[in-house]
């Protein structure tokens, strides 16, 4: 029996997001489905939350909104996620954190053939 290949990349680890943020590009043309998990490792006091949007790219340089948006976690060790399919070659998250707020994140990208 052939099993489906899968791979989880930690695209950001212990990284502080404040203001405008974007995760590093990840190349995944081999995969047909993906889940971005965001775990909050630390948050600024009274973190008001924020949104992350999935972006796709043909070349890893120029990006377009894929249309999927989800909320960032609001408590330490809380996890939020989004599911994406049919994304072509490159994936990343981007978004904006309100002035004065910050969140330290672990972003896992779980990919499957």
């Amino acid at each position, binding site marked *: 029996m052939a099993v489906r290949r899968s791979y989880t990349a930690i*695209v950001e680890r*212990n990284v502080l997001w404040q203001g405008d943020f974007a995760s*590093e590009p*990840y190349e*995944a043309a081999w995969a047909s489905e993906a889940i971005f998990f965001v775990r909050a490792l630390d948050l600024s006091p009274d973190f008001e939350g924020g949104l992350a949007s999935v972006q796709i790219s043909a070349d*890893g340089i*120029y990006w377009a909104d894929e249309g999927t948006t989800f909320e960032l976690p609001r408590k330490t060790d809380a996890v939020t996620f989004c599911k994406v399919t049919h994304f072509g070659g490159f994936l990343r998250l981007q978004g904006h954190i309100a002035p004065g707020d910050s969140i330290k994140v672990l972003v896992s990208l779980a990919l499957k053939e």
Partner: protein
Amino acid sequence: MSVYTADPRLSRFDPLERVFFYDDFDEGIRGWSELIGNYEHSPDSMLPEYKDMRPPMLSNLTMWDTGTAGSMEGSYALKLATRARAGSLATSIKRQTFRKRGQIQLECYFTFKPEASELRLSLDDVRAFGVLFDLQDGMNPEYRWMPHLRYLNAVDDEMINRWQVKGKTRPFHNIGDSGETVSHFHLGPENWDFVDCPAQSLCYNEIATKMNWHYLKVKVDLAERRFIGFQCNDLSYSGEALQHISIPAMPNLNCMLNTAFWVETNRDKRAFLYVDSVLLSGVF
């Protein structure tokens, strides 16, 4: 005709007696993971140089101007990508152990490029790439030793195009508060020495979206702890044994046979190293 020359995937390699692993990245990631520093309680306790060594990926070498090239053989290659920040490193490691202290030999095909984010030559945008072994004796170990080989492409605006080895690491640091964990950073810019061989200008091919694959072979002797030599395309070094990092054996690393690749960027621009395929052979 040997089995190696009869198989078109293997006939481009010159393995020793037995193949230890052969990684064709059309089959998946094959054990090549991100390198991370040691930590206790929190990733904040890691040495800062180890905090962000980037996850490897499977790339089909897709370019903005010409589309997909594919790997040397098939669709996918192992890709290491730095951040777009001068000095950023991306490092991927495969962790094994050995059964006999014989000779081992790593062979691979590789190519490297900066991200094609500017429409210019970009020849000096990648600072360096390299391969290392992290080894420790087995029974009654005396030493942990680490042969490093890197190709220094450019430093700032100066092209270097020379091979280097490293004979000394940085001091060890205690990590956390238990007294059980230590760490040392061995990929810094210091303590690299030029190998006694000519400069080697590798085929860059004019723009950032054209990739030419290169052959690399590295040979070490586990029994004698000797870094025997290397070959890159038509340059071979087989002179005196090359320098390597040597430190007293550590408590839980016996028979360690780790292999790692890395790439470092020279600019605030991502640098990429692609590998397809990797073959480790040996006498065991």
